[in-house]
């Protein structure tokens, strides 16, 4: 089943991919599977998702892990470790 997701990118992830957000039609059932789909698209995605240990992910505005399920999720965001404060 295909779901429509809003996918957001921040900081250098945004810069490498070249856009801040896009809508993605996907059959992925986990974040990790979504990442595989994106990596396969183009070199810039492969570059952004090269090292998952350098990335963080949030689903529906809540931090989660790469093995998190996507069922019911409407928004996924990828970004580097946060540097607030």
């Amino acid at each position, binding site marked *: 089943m295909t779901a429509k997701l809003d996918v957001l990118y921040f900081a250098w992830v945004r810069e490498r991919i070249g856009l801040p957000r896009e809508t993605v039609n996907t059959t992925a059932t986990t974040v990790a599977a979504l990442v595989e789909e994106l990596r396969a698209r183009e070199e810039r995605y492969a570059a952004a998702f090269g090292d998952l240990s350098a990335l963080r992910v949030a689903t529906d*505005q809540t931090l989660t892990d790469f093995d998190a399920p996507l069922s019911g999720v409407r928004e996924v965001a990828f970004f580097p470790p*946060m540097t607030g*404060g």
Partner: protein
Amino acid sequence: MDIRVQEAAFDVGAVLNDFTARTSGMGAVVTFNGIVRGDGGLTAMEIEHYPGMTQNALSQIAEDAGARWALGDVLVIHRFGTLTPGETIMMVATCAPHRTDAFQAAEFLMDYLKSRAPFWKREIGPDGAAWVAAKDSDEDALSRW
């Protein structure tokens, strides 16, 4: 609980006075404010954030602090946008009947804001722009709570 995410500068002293004035019965108020440093010829700091998530993430961190310590109130203000050296980036304030609770909660808030609030800093200096890398020590700091 007073959580603000804003681009505008703010008057740290006025915020502290307002916070203190409404903390009736609390004996101890602790604040932290973080300021842009001009080290290495830095001319500006750009702070990006995740608008849909930031307010909730800060509120959750403040609620976690409220659940762990006996606090009267918690305040967090965090700016985004372009800041120059000397400008205040953010501020936290806590109040409690006892000083240890106010101090511990403020340190907890800072540790979590560093690594769990969706902000990303980019430094503009003589060699161009560079994203600030998260420090292992900031991640390690969470393990003490």
